[in-house]
């Protein structure tokens, strides 16, 4: 520091640290602290272990009972968003009239995975396990930054986490824990709109972890034991 520091002149008498010294110190020390901290963390703290509680409930679907009426999709968007809208539905039914039963319909419901990739990859904790609602895996819209990692991370097709282009956030099945347009208690402890409106009883709710079957659904039979069902003679379980 070759030249004369005039700042002293502007300092009150008796002051031991000049503003410049303070600024320089703050910058230097802060810089050091952050880098040190980072290195320290890098070296000494072990990687965070990813461990989360199981969901308090699951949607169970029987693809062979699905009639493809998509009422579940309409109900899902209706109770969550106040509108009927396939693209906002957290359960997706896809069908092809020209395919052979049972491959003509697939039911894409969220499985509330034990190790939810969508939650794991979320950079901001927006996609999280909602401990207040039976550990259902859901998205806190306010925290979503729109990176769509959850959408891409879902191992199933179509992705169970979906992008809401209108409100610009990801969303997924919350087992109806948060349904502002429906006067029913939802969530693992309550009712689910899709199961409520399903005329074929192809969707039901269970609290025990179902056996994760193929992408098309679980290997379950929700109806054929019913005498009514048998009366129709579909020749399928």
């Amino acid at each position: 520091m070759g030249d004369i520091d005039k700042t002293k002149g502007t300092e009150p008498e008796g002051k031991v640290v000049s503003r410049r010294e303070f600024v320089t110190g703050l910058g230097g020390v802060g810089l050091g602290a952050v880098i040190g901290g980072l290195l320290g963390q890098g070296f000494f703290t072990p990687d965070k272990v990813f461990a989360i509680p199981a969901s308090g409930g699951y949607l169970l679907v029987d693809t062979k009972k699905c009639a493809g009426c998509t009422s579940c999709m309409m109900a899902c968007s209706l109770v969550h968003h106040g509108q009927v809208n396939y693209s906002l539905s957290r359960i997706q039914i896809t069908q092809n009239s020209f395919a052979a039963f049972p491959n003509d319909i697939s039911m894409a419901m969220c499985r509330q995975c034990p190790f939810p990739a969508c939650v794991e990859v979320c950079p901001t904790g927006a996609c999280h396990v909602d401990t207040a609602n039976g550990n259902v895996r859901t998205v806190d819209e306010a925290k979503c930054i729109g990176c769509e990692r959850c959408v891409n991370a879902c191992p199933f097709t179509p992705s169970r986490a979906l992008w809401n282009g209108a409100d610009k956030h990801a969303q997924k099945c919350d087992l109806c824990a948060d349904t502002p347009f429906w006067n029913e208690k939802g969530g693992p402890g309550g009712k689910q709109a899709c199961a409520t409106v399903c005329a074929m009883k192809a969707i039901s709710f269970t609290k025990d972890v179902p056996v994760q079957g193929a992408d098309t659904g679980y290997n379950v039979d929700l109806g054929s034991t019913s005498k009514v069902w048998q009366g129709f003679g579909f020749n399928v379980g």
Partner: protein
Amino acid sequence: MANGYAGKILKVDLTTKTIGEIPTSQYEQWGGGHGMGSAIFWDLCEDPTVDGTDPKNVVTIMAGPLSGTLASGAAGRTEVQGIGLQSMPRGWFTRSNFGGRFSTHLKYAGWDGIVILGKSDKQVWLNIVDGKVTLEDATSLWGLDTHATQQKIWASVLGAPPAGNWDTLGTTRDSGRSTQRPAVLSAGPNAEKFGPWASLVHDGGNGAGQGGFGGVFASKNLKAVSVLGTGGIEVADPNALMQARTWLMGYAVAGNWDNQGKNVAGNWPLPANPGTASSFPKGTALRPQGCAGCVRMCRCRSDKIMGNDSMCVDFFTTAGATPEVNVVWTDLMQKLGLNAFNLVGLFPWLRGLVAEGAIGKGKAIDSSLPFEQMTSVAFGVDLMNSIVNQTDIGKDLALGLWQCAQKWGRLDKDLATGMLPLQEWGYVHHYDGRTEAEWGYGCLLGDRDINEHDFNWICYWTPTIWAAYGMTPLVTAQRMAEIMSKQMIPYSDEPNLIDYSDAGIYSETMAKTTAWHRHYTRYYKQALGFCDWNWADFVNPYGPDFVGATSIGEPKFFNAVTGKNQTFAEGMEIGRKIWNLDRAVWILQGRTRDMEVFSDYMYDVAATAKTPGIPYEMPYTMPVFENGAWSYKSVAGRKLDRQKVEDFKTLFFKLEGWDTKTGWPTRKTLEDLGLKNVADKLQGAGKLGAA
């Protein structure tokens, strides 16, 4: 505005290739569907007297406020209107209606309906993805069947065959996404060549068959309409809609799976249960399949891709033809886009001609079709192909049944005997106007075979089946009459509305029944889209004391979705208004009272077999009120009396406020309905009814 409407109606002029829109609010008073369609046709069709193939013909494909919602049965229907090619002596302004996913996607794409004007100079198909509407080249699709066409269009809209993944429609992150296949409505191969037979087919087997709209499409050089919607429809009261839905499920198997004591087989069944296997070969693995938002699921999909989405008369059958044969015929019929109901009438006619020795190799009507094996797969296949390719008798049949009979010089003869079962307007006999009066009158005073089973299921089918086994229904005829009178607002004070006795079918009460049916179906079924196999729900095993959902259910859904506060009676009044507007169109087309007569066999031949020496009557048991008491009685073998039918028409016209001489509405009637402009136009044409 959360009222169930998308807010705009798509207007496509094929001549000028211009895409426009009409604000839905302009037609909201008509409810939707048929009401809006008729009003739009009235406003936009310069000349309703032209033929259906004329570029001036206006075709509307309408959804309604309930389309795409959870309003069961109403969510999935789409109403098609325009001047048809099928009816005789002229193509009346007519309607047809199909199920599936089409109106749902139309609404989600932001449209309450489609209006098609003019004629394209090139073969095109209409591509709708949300707000983006384009006309695409259809030359490569023109000769394809309806199924192939749909699959080609799916791949074209999505850029690749559907993979069940999220497709981004548009380029940006926030443009719409969907996992769904576009909903496509397609005409058959070169449908212009067999117009009166040509239907419009959506998915596997949702067809708008009657009227020949496939031919109308083709005449406009339009092959298909595809729509994919990634948006939504805001509902006025979502919670009320959820409640209405679960409430209605209580009236169906859907809400009573565990109710073994009351299951359908053990009690009075519903008009539509989950699709049944009875039309399929034994052992076929099936799923029930339903239109968007349904609770009934009346169709099936099979493990052999047979009869997918088809139902009812799609499995048109002829004696001895096994299900194995029928499903093959059904799928071919759907692919070719042929009207199943014409085939239903064609078979008995051909059988008669064969029995007469009038048709066959070297016969008066020369044909090399294998008539010796009419129940074989081959016969049906050859027959249908002959119509579509205009080969053999197909080149005459393709003109339409009536026209063909005329060409063969058989029309009067075969209509007199009923061997050619065209009950009225050249439409194939469906339910028998001689016995089930409201059905016959409805057709005669309208434009087509009504195909509305509201009374049919409860008053005819169920009693008849029980009677065939020597049993009576669990609901007495008297109880049935009580229940239905209560529901048949505004005629609830009339106790004898379902009296099908020999006297009853000509009575003023039957005029009221017929009027109620016309008004109810025009609004609730064809404007709001309530499905024929869900509604009217008069008598229901799950309802309190067997009382069905009708008159409570319809407004419940309508009000939940639209936020309006409409009563059932107000809806019936809109139905009357629509019915009068349609009447006005027919009148401009040349309708007069004296045209409204059944084919001769309805008056001269009882509903009996035509085998001399062997008496036979088709079973027909219905409720009658005779000698002060209700009962279920066989009314089979009844003929109609010409004069009494004419007297009935007079009663009916009086009731409707129409000129009894001409059957034309009076100015007062029209103005009371707020149809002054209609009255003026009729007057201008010199066709206003005299007060």
